[in-house]
């Protein structure tokens, strides 16, 4: 097994620290990269399965939590252990850590506090603004805020201190101050008034007018939604006037209109990925190298954040180079995308130079310090024309609790708000949203990202509308569903397929729906049976998503792929291998993921913020052919298949077109002037053979050897960027103008090094697209039948069906698996999981899985859960994101089924057995 290529890269950062790579493996210990290159050459494995299959069933070292210094060639032999001490109080002034008492149990070698950070001059990246450690004399900003980092040379001392701190109180607090007051994180208003006909332009929409925010009351920090008296400028007033008019109509008492006005609350939950956050780092002071091993969803961001943290640090605390290595991740669900944890890992190493230091949460600490899902309070009003059954207007007000640090609260607020009308076409919409600070644990990214909350409220309301009118719930949805070309709440149409009608047809025809009456009537004595339906349209992508990918083929036909997307269970490595195989005929046997530092040949640089850049700035920047709007994205927002594989797929197309195809022509003896030489698109692969009608199939190995022999393109490295559309660029390859959905390209000929190609033309998606809420959406509908025991309130899911569409499924088995897993997570969210805010919540450091219940096998209909994935609309329909949408409809479907069974409509989550028992009493 040879180590995959991982070239030295100097990566210039604002801070002047270069991010780069590490040494190669010594002879006996495999390097990190060798371990993480899967499935690995020569490793026997079943014919089907994930590229990481063998590694994961044999317990190979793969996750960040698996690595100790001794496992990494060149690192110190021993591992020291760090412990983050967090405050379980956010209403009293912090007065220090009782080190004397702790020291009697286990004395830390190093103690790092706010004072130390001040002394060395660290900077906190703006995304994590707030003290990394609560200084003495200040009230902690939030429950679970770190106050100190302790480092122990030996594991036993660390372990003793961990238990002592878990079970005892070593933090001193002074006067009661109440919680720290912090302004709201953000407030927005999304208002749309459609024109008189579907074809007419909108009278008002966010995409036409821009996004608007209200003013705030200085006294309380509360947003002022009314257009007067102190709204922020004329833009707000204009939108708010339309918004208030919609509300007035909803409140007019028009008898022709059915109006419902409901409150709905959702709870805070934990992503509960199974591998708690952890990292390992070592600062070699002599060389000035900081080496760090992490498992995150956002590798580029984590490395950049560490570089920023230390970029202005004083002598001995500013590394010359950061070598960040990113491991396979034991579950993410958003909760490992942009967390401050890597900063503490880096600090642990910087404050104990020459030693490898490990920082790892246990589960109590992960509950206390990990990112949570936002709890929402929502008021929703809907107006439906009784005669036609058409929804005429919709208004909602969302308040979401962002917890202690801003993190992703602003964007969760936006995504939740713009997702609030789900699958529907509603001509008048007015949604306000405000993300507030609280002393709770920080909320951030989590699967569903605000839309889980708002679409649950919506789909429960829709069910009530259908019951009240009355009209069949599926017929009502069909009547009001957004059609292809119809406009979203922001005012733009989706630019991808919209298959609501098909999904609704599937739901309607399914036996669970058809038999709902019979099943209800035939309930066992003492039991209630009900059936529920719901449908969700979830955006994927963030409006500035990018991917890096390299594809190489060796003379013997072996394929290697490098990508920057992260494998956290999503099957991205397998998706990369499968998507590349479509173009170059073979499944790679060396795939690396989460790599951000092997693309130096592209010489990329970026400037500005791709979400807020102006058109003029973008046009100017784009003149430099090395500039891209963003370099590498987090693996989140369901972008794995769509974005994460894009660069590698485009690279594979280049390898085929300019390496394998010319080689095949040579082997077939077809001259370049022969018309067939232009028919590359007619050829296809089967069983590692290239097939072209009328010619002998050619084995991949022979083609690869020929491509190397004639110095064709045998490797390509690409960068792709999407702002609701791909950036496109044209490159001169072998004298031909080649246009692809990429904005940077480097190629390798034969066995040469990679060389960058200048793009001759580039078209970045317009900056105005940043006003789009989303242009990409996938759909999922769910049916569920429940059985509730009257006496106990015990609920059993008898049967369920989810139908989804995701364009081309790159790894169909993973798509089904994600749908099953999303279903389970939805069941947990609807029925089991909840974290109280504040002092009784996870910030107190006492939460674990005995108290926090996630769905087990026995909570699920393991043999009665049917998943159907619609085939792509066309052979060339690209992959669409589906990881989030699959967890949404089960939540409202369960509530609707509970209503069908019990006649009780719950307006908050979770609905526990005790609540059901109470409702039935």
């Amino acid at each position, binding site marked *: 097994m040879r180590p995959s290529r991982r070239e030295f890269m100097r990566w210039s950062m604002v801070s002047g620290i270069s991010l780069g790579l590490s040494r190669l493996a010594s002879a006996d210990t495999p390097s990190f990269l060798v371990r993480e290159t899967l499935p690995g050459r020569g*490793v*026997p494995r*079943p014919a*089907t399965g*994930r590229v990481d*299959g*063998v*590694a*994961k*069933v*044999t*317990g*190979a070292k*793969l*996750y960040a*939590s698996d*690595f*100790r210094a*001794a*496992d990494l060639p060149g690192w110190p032999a021993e591992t020291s252990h760090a412990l983050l001490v967090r405050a379980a109080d956010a209403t009293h002034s912090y007065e220090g850590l009782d080190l004397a008492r702790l020291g009697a149990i286990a004395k830390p070698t190093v103690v790092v506090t706010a004072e130390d950070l001040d002394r060395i001059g660290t900077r906190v990246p703006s995304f994590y603004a707030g003290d990394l450690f609560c200084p003495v004399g200040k009230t902690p900003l939030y429950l679970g805020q770190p106050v100190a980092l302790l480092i122990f040379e030996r*594991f*036993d001392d660390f*372990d*003793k201190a961990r*238990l002592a701190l878990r079970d005892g109180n070593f933090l001193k607090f002074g006067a009661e101050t109440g919680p720290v007051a912090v302004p709201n994180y953000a407030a927005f208003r999304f208002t749309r008034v459609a024109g008189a006909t579907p074809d007419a332009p909108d009278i008002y929409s966010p995409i036409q007018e821009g996004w608007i925010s209200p003013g705030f009351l200085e006294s309380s920090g509360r947003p002022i939604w009314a257009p007067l008296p102190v709204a922020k400028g004329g833009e707000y007033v204009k939108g708010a006037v339309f918004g208030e008019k919609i509300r007035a109509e909803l409140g007019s008492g028009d008898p022709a209109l059915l109006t419902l006005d409901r409150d709905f609350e959702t709870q805070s939950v934990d*992503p509960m*990925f*199974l*591998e708690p956050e952890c990292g390992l780092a070592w600062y070699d002071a002599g060389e000035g190298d900081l080496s760090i091993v992490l498992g995150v969803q956002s590798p580029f961001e984590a490395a950049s954040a560490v570089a920023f943290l230390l970029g202005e640090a004083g002598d001995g605390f500013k590394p010359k180079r950061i070598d960040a290595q990113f491991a*396979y*991740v*034991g*579950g993410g669900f958003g909760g490992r995308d942009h967390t401050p944890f890597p900063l503490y890992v880096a600090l642990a190493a910087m404050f104990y130079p020459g030693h490898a230091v490990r920082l790892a949460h*246990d*589960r*109590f600490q992960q509950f206390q310090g990990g990112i949570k899902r936002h709890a929402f309070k929502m008021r929703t009003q809907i107006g439906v024309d009784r005669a036609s059954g058409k929804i005429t207007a919709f208004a909602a007000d969302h308040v979401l609790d962002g917890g202690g640090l801003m993190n992703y609260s602003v964007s969760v607020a936006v995504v939740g708000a713009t997702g609030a009308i789900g699958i529907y076409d509603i001509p008048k919409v007015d949604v306000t949203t405000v993300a507030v600070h609280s002393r709770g644990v920080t909320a951030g990214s989590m699967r569903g990202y605000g839309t889980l909350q708002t679409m649950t409220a919506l789909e429960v309301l829709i069910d009530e509308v259908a019951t009240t009118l009355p009209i069949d719930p599926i017929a009502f949805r069909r009547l009001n569903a957004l059609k292809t070309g119809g406009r979203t709440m922001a005012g733009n149409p989706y630019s991808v397929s919209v298959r609501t009608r098909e999904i609704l047809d599937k739901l309607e025809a399914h036996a669970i729906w058809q038999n709902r009456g019979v099943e209800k009537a035939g309930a066992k004595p003492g039991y209630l049976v009900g059936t529920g339906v719901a449908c969700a349209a979830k955006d994927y992508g963030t409006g500035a998503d990018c991917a890096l990918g390299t594809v190489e083929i060796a003379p013997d036909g072996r394929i290697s792929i490098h990508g920057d997307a992260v494998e*956290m*269970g*999503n*099957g991205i490595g397998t998706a990369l291998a499968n998507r590349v195989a479509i173009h170059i005929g073979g499944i790679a046997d060396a795939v690396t993921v989460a790599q951000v530092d092997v693309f130096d040949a592209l010489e990329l640089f970026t400037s500005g913020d791709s979400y807020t850049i102006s058109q003029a700035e973008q046009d100017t920047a784009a003149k430099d052919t090395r500039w891209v709007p963003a370099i590498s994205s987090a693996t989140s927002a369901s972008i794995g298949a769509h974005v994460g594989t894009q660069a590698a797929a485009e690279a594979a197309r280049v390898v085929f077109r300019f390496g394998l195809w010319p080689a095949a022509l040579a082997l077939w003896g077809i001259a370049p002037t022969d018309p067939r030489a232009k028919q590359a698109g007619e050829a296809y692969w089967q069983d590692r053979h290239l097939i072209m009608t009328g010619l002998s199939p050619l084995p991949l190995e022979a083609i690869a050897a020929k491509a190397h022999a004639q110095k064709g393109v045998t490797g390509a490295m690409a960068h792709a960027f999407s702002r609701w559309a791909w950036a496109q660029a044209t490159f001169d390859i072998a004298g031909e103008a080649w246009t692809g959905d990429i904005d940077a390209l480097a190629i390798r000929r034969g066995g040469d090094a990679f060389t960058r190609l200048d793009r001759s033309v580039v078209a970045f998606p317009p900056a105005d697209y940043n006003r789009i809420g989303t242009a990409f959406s996938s759909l999922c509908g769910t049916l569920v039948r429940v059985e509730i025991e009257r006496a106990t309130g015990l609920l059993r899911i008898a049967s369920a069906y989810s139908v989804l569409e995701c364009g081309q499924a790159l790894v169909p*088995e*993973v798509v089904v*698996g*994600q749908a*099953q*897993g*999303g279903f*389970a*997570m939805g069941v947990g969210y609807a029925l089991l999981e909840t974290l109280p805010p504040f002092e009784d919540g996870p910030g107190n450091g006492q939460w*674990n*899985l*005995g108290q926090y219940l*996630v*769905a*087990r*096998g*026995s909570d699920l209909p*393991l*043999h009665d*859960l049917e998943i159907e994935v619609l085939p792509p609309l066309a052979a060339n329909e690209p992959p669409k994101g589906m990881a989030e949408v699959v967890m949404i409809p089960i939540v409202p479907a369960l509530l609707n089924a509970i209503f069908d069974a019990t006649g009780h409509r719950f307006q908050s989550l979770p609905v526990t057995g005790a609540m059901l028992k109470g409702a039935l009493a």
Partner: protein
Amino acid sequence: MTNLALTINGRAYGPMDVRDELTMNDFLREFLGMTGTKFGCGAAQCLSCAVIVDRPDGSSYTNPTCIVPAVNFDGKSIRTVEGHASDGALTPLQTAFIEHFAFQCGYCTAGFLNEGQVLLERLARQKVARADVEATIAEALDGHLCRCTGYVKYHEAVRAVILADPGRYLI
């Protein structure tokens, strides 16, 4: 400190002095570097840390390691995820896990693999009726938490191994 000697995947370890409070999980992961056995909750709630313990009579059971002192394993013989395959040859259960795409992130896989393997070994001694296969698997695996998969494919994989060898497992 207490003396500890045990057998892991057929290999003898110890005797060595071990702190009484050290968990078996930390002993495996921090002292032996055997990180195939995972740490998930530290409270025996998720069972991602379970290993197989072999009884002298040839029967086996799983035991979580995160809440049991290492010293309590003195004299015992255990198997971990690293010990299932021999010379690169995967067991039928490992193969089934891969072929069924049973896991996603894979962090709970060692626990499910050990539990499934113990179930297979029990059924080989004590066959089960075809009609009881699903319930038997459900009961055996229910202690294990998985956040990615919804469990369906784990169950299908274990069932596939049982049904593929009816003479061995079924009445």
